[in-house]
């Protein structure tokens, strides 16, 4: 139990460091920013505005005070879970993000399911038939898959399954059918890395001496494959997932844009084009915390499925 706490502690420190780094960077960048948020708020590019109006806005949003004070104020608000108000939507940032969260989480889960369905059979086949045609096929698919831009893959899928064959809906989120294309696109975008990793893992494990021992003990082949080999290859898979959760959140943004999926990605891209600073900052903070939180979960899961880590951690203490 002490171990779990120390792990949580480590992650929280990490969160704090990251948080300070990020908020610092975002604030410095804001200072440097060429665009003027005041003009954005007034939403007038061509109409001439009076300086009085601008001053009023500046005061209202606190832009006229020294940056350090703005920073301190913002920090203390964040600690109270107040991420400010969106300039465009005039709603609390946190509320906006939380509204969009379920859609993104749902898509992530859909993507993971698709990933497992694609990656596991491919890599198991490739590992069992190492250096035979199934292996070459899998490696070929993986390397081509890793070269295709995910949004282009999505476009192709839309083109064939929605426009040509009229099988699946293109945009939005509603029925289960709406999930298929975005999930598959996300799954396929992630699959190559996992196929490569799982295949190498499995090949290493299948050649390891403990598999040889299990064979020499006469344990049925299917049991060895399932309980000794695949089980063993799951450990790095979970670690890998923790490491790639960040790029997953990035990848999901593109896919949400492509399919007009009402998730966080769409929200943030619109915020960027509209220069909605509080929203951008809030998004960064939320995503950062999310990444750290998921990594903590991954740590705990790894500890559960890999007793050796627990042992080593204990020894290190």
């Amino acid at each position, binding site marked *: 139990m002490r171990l779990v706490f120390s792990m949580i502690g480590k992650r929280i420190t990490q969160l704090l460091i990251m948080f300070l780094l990020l908020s610092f960077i975002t604030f410095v960048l804001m200072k440097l920013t060429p665009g003027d948020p005041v003009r954005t708020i007034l939403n007038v590019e061509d109409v001439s505005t009076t300086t009085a109006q601008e001053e009023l806005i500046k005061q209202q949003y606190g832009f006229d005070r020294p940056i350090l004070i703005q920073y301190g104020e913002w920090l203390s608000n964040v600690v109270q879970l107040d991420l400010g108000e969106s300039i465009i939507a005039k709603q609390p940032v946190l509320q906006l993000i939380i509204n969009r969260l379920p859609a993104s989480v749902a898509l992530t889960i859909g993507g993971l399911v698709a990933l497992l369905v694609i990656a596991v059979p491919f890599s198991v086949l490739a590992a069992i038939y190492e250096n035979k045609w199934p292996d070459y096929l899998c490696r070929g698919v993986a390397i081509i898959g890793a070269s295709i831009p995910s949004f282009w893959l999505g476009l192709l899928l839309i083109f064939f399954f929605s426009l040509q064959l009229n099988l699946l809906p293109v945009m939005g989120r509603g029925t289960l059918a709406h999930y298929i294309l975005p999930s598959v696109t996300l799954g396929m975008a992630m699959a190559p890395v996992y196929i490569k990793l799982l295949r190498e893992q499995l090949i290493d494990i299948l050649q390891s001496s403990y598999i040889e021992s299990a064979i020499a003990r006469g344990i049925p082949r299917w049991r060895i494959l399932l309980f000794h080999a695949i089980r063993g290859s799951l450990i790095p898979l979970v670690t890998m997932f923790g490491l790639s959760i960040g*790029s997953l959140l*990035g990848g999901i943004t593109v896919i949400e844009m492509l399919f007009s999926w009402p998730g966080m990605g769409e929200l943030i891209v619109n915020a960027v084009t509209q220069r909605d600073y509080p929203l951008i900052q809030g998004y960064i903070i939320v995503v950062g915390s999310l990444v750290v939180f998921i990594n903590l979960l991954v740590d705990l899961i790894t500890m559960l499925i890999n007793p050796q880590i627990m042992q080593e951690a204990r020894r290190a203490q």
Partner: protein
Amino acid sequence: MKKGNATLFNLPITTKLGITLVSFLLILIFFGEWIMPYDPFQIDMNNRLESMSHQHWLGTDQLGRDIFSRIVYGAKLTIGLGVITIILSVIVGVPIGLISGFSGGKIDAVFMRIIDAILTFPDFILAIAIAGLLGPSLTNIVIAIVLVRWIVYARLVRSQVLELKQQEYILASKISYSSKWRTIRMHILPHLIPTIIAIGAVDVGKVILLISSLSYIGLGAQPHIPEWGAMLNDGRGYFQVVPALMMYPGLAIMLTVLIFHLLGDGLKNRFDIRKRGLRK
């Protein structure tokens, strides 16, 4: 493990393919201007959305610009950005990794903490943040990616140095009174450089994907610039009418990234990098 002298002829087929394709890309980059039949920025509203023809090999886009010329022009831009990003990341990451791994102790711990913290922060999101705050542009995207990418090299170099430090020839070098710099030059760099080149090649491909993705959602290259991702974004509205508008830039990205993947894998095999030691 080590094969005899590798000549151009007994290299593995993937490497041969890789070298051929890379030379092809190099020609595109350096001689692109002579190949382009049209000015890639020339708008011609009389010839909008034309299909393939003798005049326009790959047709024209919604503003009548020649797609082939734009793709050729985009090659230089897209690949150049990818390569520059990686070179910058290497320049930042490698020394930090070397220092961190070689000195160990507190310096190492501090670097690792920072790296861990940044690592949780995905490059894509940081790119969004920077694009959002500084405004979308290719320069900002490159800055954003380098800010995160250097970590890959710092970590790679650090872990390699830590692994090499266990090797007894590094100890022997210390016992021989070799200076730290001499040990690094004689025993560490020869192992590191091939790895960095091979990983860097694959990474160029990854970065090209990343930049084009960001351009596609409008956070990278601005619409009129013939960066391939931006071209796809540009043609989004006409996609159902003229699928070719989506086809060629996408294919160009895919083939280019594929080439860098093949090149990287070929180099990995050539340098015999595959996770040494893990396989028994």
